[in-house]
């Protein structure tokens, strides 16, 4: 299983294995990583699973879709590599990926 590193706003790091085919959001929820709230459970409606992809991994994580991009316009601090983690499906290539979680979800 690909290992993903989640870094909370306060710097706490989690290194967890996330199954291929599940989402980066699910990886956080299954490991009680608090910095992902995911109020809607992963339907791209609520904007509470915001994460910032480490720039080195941005290409592999991919670009947000149109709906996701609109929601991202509304997060408190948007970065170039901001994504909604429910919309990133984990692949083998993401082994080692690093994502940071925003203050608003801290």
């Amino acid at each position, binding site marked *: 299983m690909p290992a993903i590193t989640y870094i909370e706003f306060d710097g706490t790091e989690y290194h967890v294995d996330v199954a291929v085919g599940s989402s980066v959001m699910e990886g956080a929820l299954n490991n*009680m990583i608090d910095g992902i709230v995911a109020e809607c459970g992963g339907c791209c409606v609520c904007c509470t699973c915001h994460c910032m992809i480490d720039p080195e991994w941005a290409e592999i994580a991919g670009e947000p879709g149109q*709906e996701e991009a609109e929601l991202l316009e*509304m997060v408190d601090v948007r970065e170039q590599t901001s994504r909604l983690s429910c919309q990133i499906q984990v692949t083998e290539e993401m082994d080692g990926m690093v994502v940071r979680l925003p203050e608003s979800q801290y």
Partner: protein
Amino acid sequence: MRVDDNAVVVGASHAAVQLVISLRQNGWLGSITVISEEPYMPYQRPPLSKAYLSGILEEDRLALRAVETYKTLNVSFKLGCRVEHLDTENKILILDSQEKISFTKLALCTGARVRRLDLPGGDLQGVHYLRTMDDVKAIRQSASTSKRAVIIGGGYIGLEAAASLSKLGISVTVMETEPRLLQRVASQQVSEFYKRLHQEEGVEVKLNSMAVALHSGESGRNVGSVLCNDGAVIGADMVIIGVGVIPNTELAGEAGLTIDNGIVVNEFAQTSHPDIVAAGDCTFHPNPLLKKSLRLESVPNASEQAKAAAASLCGIKKAYSELPWFWSDQFDVKLQIAGISQGYTEAVVRGDTSIGRSFAVFYIKNQQIIAADCINRPKDFMVAKKLISQQSTIDVAALVDEGIEIKTLIN
């Protein structure tokens, strides 16, 4: 909190899962047991009428958390068990197997069940309600051999089911007793839009129409047609009835807890018994933002209220005070609803309701936005949530002017 304490949660849905996680996060040291009438580990309910019904999402993708997560949390499950009795004096639950389970603290996450219609022919094969995984498994089974479906009830569940079945190539008729769809929950504009959407997608919409009987088809066992109050007969190989839900309050009520359109709780999710909390669809709870008590059927409500409930069980005061919100997926349309529109005096529209599939309706009362229905407008929805919480006077002319960036209206 002590190691030999035991917390018991009745029900295993969204509220229960958040509750057990929050219990551990708040330092609950004792055991945690979740008892559920359903035979499944906790699963997501929203996709049942949407992606799971239309076959886009399969059962293994519905789990709310991985099984390993519950192991890590040291939470045990008793599935397929119905709690028959709650003895508050001795703090004991009695299951249908007569097994007795004692508790130090109890959380009721009993949810709601479908309201059933007393219709002649209602027990025919192919007649379904939609609430649980088993319901939708049966619906999928029927759908695999059906060409025509009738949906009784033009609310969100009925319309989502109509869209999902339609995607599977089934001809669908939606029947609604009221003069418009979503009468109870949406404005005229939104109702009209959903009628147009469904008609554009080939769904037949029959308003002011009530089913009076279901008749069997050629086989004699399966439904074959629906008789309407105007005498019309609609052919149907399957029927889904979606006419609302009833909160599951009997267990709490018989035990003497206060009931009023749900299990009555305060803002800390505490019931009238000091060791019992409740969360989710089954509760009638105060909302400080809305300045009234209400019962909600929504996932965000279940999850957020569960956090307050778990805190209470751990002796921590964490008030639940969130703006209610909801969503619905039908065809390529995502509706996001912020707030409760009840009591609005004016509904204004940003965008065009008559063509296309993108606009927002804002509900105004005393020059403030109290709710919004956003059709394929995620940004408007996010702005609406902030504007409602802000409770400041709104410039309606600017709100409906698409030339003005909506974000600039936030103070």
